[in-house]
C-alpha cells in the first residue's frame, strides 16, 4: 500500500536529479546573465563593481528597433512557413504504410548527420551569385542575373526554414500518428467537406503537436546567430548577431547580457502562452462543470 505522501516523495526522488541539473546549468546561469545586465562595464572587457542602470539606457540604441523588428518578423514568418510545410508532411508520414513511413522519417532525420555549419555553408554556395541555385533560376528566367540571393533577410529566412523544418515535422507527425482518423470519417459523414474536416477536426486534434512545432521553430529562430552571420550579411542581421558583436568585438559583457536577457524574456513569453494554452482545456471545462453543478 502506498499513501499519497509516499507517491509524492517518490516523484521528487525521480525528478530530483534533473531538477538539480536544470538549476545548476540553466536557472543559475540565466540569473547571472540577468544580474550582469545591471553591472557597469570596464574598458578592458571586464565587469565593474557596484550596480548601475546605464546599460539598460544604452539599449535605446537607434539601430536596435530595426534589428529587433527584423528578428521578430523573420522568426514569425519562418514559424508560419514551417508549420504550413510541416502539417502536410507530418500528416502524410503518419498516414503512410509502415515501411514507407520509416523511410520518410529517415529522410527527415538524415540532414542531422551532416554538421549544421557545413549545411549552412552549403547554402552559401548554392545562393552565391555563381552558385548552382542562382544559375539555375537565371537559366529558367525565374530571376534576373543581377538579383542577389545571398546576404539579405530572405536568405536568412530560407535557411532558418530549412534548418528548423525537421523540428516542426517531428512533433506534428507524432500528434498526427496518434490522431483517431475515424473522426475524419465522422465529420465527413456529418456533411463536412474534406477541407472542413481538416480545419475543424484534424487541426484541433493535433493542436498540441502544432504548438510544440511552433515553439521548436520560433524560439531557436529568435536566438539565431550563426545563420544570419553566414548568409545574412549586414542587411540580414538579427539580435543574436548583436549579442555576439557586443561580446566579442566591443567586449561589453553587461550590454551583451542585457540584450540576452531581453531575448530570454521574449522567448519566455510565447512559451508561457503555450503552457497556459495547453493547460487551458482542463481548467476550462472544470469551470463549466462547476457552473452546471451550481
Amino acid at each position: 500500500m502506498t499513501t499519497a505522501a509516499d507517491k509524492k516523495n517518490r516523484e521528487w526522488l525521480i525528478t530530483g536529479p534533473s531538477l538539480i541539473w536544470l538549476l545548476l546549468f540553466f536557472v543559475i546561469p540565466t540569473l547571472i546573465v540577468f544580474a550582469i545586465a545591471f553591472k557597469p562595464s570596464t574598458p578592458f572587457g571586464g565587469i565593474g563593481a557596484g550596480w548601475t542602470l546605464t546599460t539598460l539606457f544604452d539599449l535605446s540604441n537607434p539601430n536596435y528597433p530595426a534589428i529587433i523588428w527584423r528578428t521578430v518578423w523573420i522568426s514569425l514568418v519562418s514559424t508560419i512557413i514551417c508549420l504550413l510545410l510541416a502539417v502536410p508532411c507530418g500528416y502524410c508520414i503518419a498516414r503512410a504504410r509502415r515501411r514507407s513511413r520509416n523511410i520518410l522519417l529517415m529522410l527527415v532525420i538524415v540532414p542531422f548527420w551532416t554538421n549544421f555549419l557545413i549545411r549552412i555553408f552549403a547554402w552559401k554556395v548554392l545562393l552565391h551569385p555563381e552558385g548552382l541555385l542562382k544559375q539555375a533560376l537565371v537559366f529558367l528566367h525565374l530571376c534576373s542575373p543581377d538579383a542577389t540571393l545571398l546576404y539579405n533577410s530572405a536568405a536568412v529566412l530560407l535557411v532558418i526554414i530549412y534548418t528548423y523544418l525537421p523540428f516542426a515535422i517531428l512533433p506534428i507527425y507524432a500528434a498526427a500518428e496518434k490522431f483517431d482518423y475515424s473522426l475524419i470519417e465522422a465529420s465527413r459523414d456529418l456533411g463536412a467537406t474534406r477541407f472542413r474536416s481538416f480545419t475543424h477536426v484534424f487541426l484541433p486534434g493535433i493542436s498540441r503537436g502544432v504548438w510544440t512545432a511552433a515553439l521548436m521553430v520560433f524560439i531557436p529562430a529568435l536566438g539565431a546567430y550563426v545563420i544570419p552571420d553566414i548568409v545574412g550579411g549586414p542587411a540580414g542581421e538579427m539580435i543574436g548577431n548583436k549579442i555576439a558583436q557586443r561580446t566579442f568585438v566591443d567586449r561589453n559583457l553587461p550590454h551583451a547580457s542585457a540584450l540576452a536577457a531581453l531575448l530570454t524574456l521574449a522567448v519566455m513569453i510565447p512559451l508561457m502562452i503555450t503552457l497556459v494554452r495547453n493547460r487551458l482545456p482542463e481548467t476550462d471545462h472544470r469551470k463549466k462543470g462547476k457552473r452546471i453543478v451550481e
Partner: protein
Amino acid sequence: MSDFLVFEGVSKRYGETQAVDSVTFSINRGEIFSLLGPSGCGKTTLLRCCAGFEDPDSGRIILDGKDITGLPPHRRKVNTVFQNYALFPHLSIRENIAFGPRTAGWTRGETDKEVSRMLELIQMEEYADRKVTEISGGQKQRIAIARALINRPQVLLLDEPLAALDLKLRQRMLVELDSIHDEVGITFVYVTHDQGEAMGISDRIAAMNLGHIEQIGTPAEIYEAPRSSFVAAFIGDTNFFDGTVTEVMDGSYCRLRIDGFPDVLAWNDKGLQVNNAVHLSLRPEKFNISREQPDALPNRNVVQGTVEDIIYLGSHTKYWVRVEDYRLGIHHQHSRYLLDTRPITWNEKVWISWFADDSYMMERYKPEDENLLVLPDMEVEEEVLPV
C-alpha cells in the same frame, strides 16, 4: 413503402478477399433492418458503402429512387453511428451535436433549438456543456445517435453501436434505441454480430456469411425457419442431424435414417422423396427431458440417452445428453417446484422427446449453394456438433 434503400448487385473486394459478393436486397422506409453475421461476413463493408466511405467495385445503391453510389459521404442524406462513437474530443457535447447543423450552415437559432430538442430526446440536457471525455460509454452512445439524427438523415446507419457496452447497459440501450426509432420514424440499418441484439430490435434481419446474404426475414422466420445450416447455427443454438429419407408418410411427415442415431420422424415441408439427403435442425428448447418415459404419440419422437453435462442458468438448465453417436444440447425450463423435486443428475438415463413438427429440415443444397452448408470460423457451442 418498400424499396426505399436498395442494394443492387453490390460487390467489394479487398485484395484477395471478396468482402461482399454481388449482394442484392432492399430495405423498407421506416423499418429497422439488421445486417447480422460473424466478423468478416461483409456487413460492415455494406454499411461503409452505404455511408460513402467505400465505393463498391460494382453494383448500385439507390436511396429513395436516387442512385447514390458515387456520392461522397458529405453529400448523402445518410448518417452513421460509429462503433467507437467517434465523438470529437475537442468539442463539448453540445458542440458535437451541433457539428452537422453548423457545417450545413443552419442559423444559430435553429441550431440551438434542434440541439436542445436532441438533448431532450436522449435525456442528457444537464450534460450539454461537458467534454466528451467525462461521460460514460452509454452516454457517449446517446450523443453519437443525437449527433447523427439532428441532420435529419433519410437513413441512420448503426455500426455495432452497443458492442462497447456491458450486458445490462446493452439491453437498456436496445430498448432506448427502439423508442428513439419510434419517435423519429426514420429507417435504421443496424450492423451487428450479436444475434440477441438483432432479434430484439429488428423488423427484418439479413443473415450474412462470407460476403453473401443467406436469408432475409423477420426475426421469427430466421429463427424458426433457417434457410441454411449457417443461419440455424449462427442465430441461436441448434442440433444438426444428417440423414436420408427412408419413408414418406401421410400428413407431410417422413421418416429419416440418421447414422449413429435412432430413426426420427420429421415434418416434410420441403416435399422430399425417398433417398433424398436431409440436413435437420432441432433447437434445444424443443426437446423435453424426463426421467419417466413419455406417452407415445403419432408425431412424437422418443429416444433414450445419458446425461453428460448440466449447466443450471436459473431461467433454464442446459443438458448435454449422449444418444448413440450424438451429443444433444437441450434447454429445459423448470417449474417453481424445482427445489421440491429430485433433479435430473449426471450419468442418469433420461427420456428425450420432441414433436416431429418442431424439427426443421434444410434440404441438401445443390453444389452451387455449397457455401450455405459451410460454417465459418466462429465460436460454435459444442452442442451443435455431432461427436
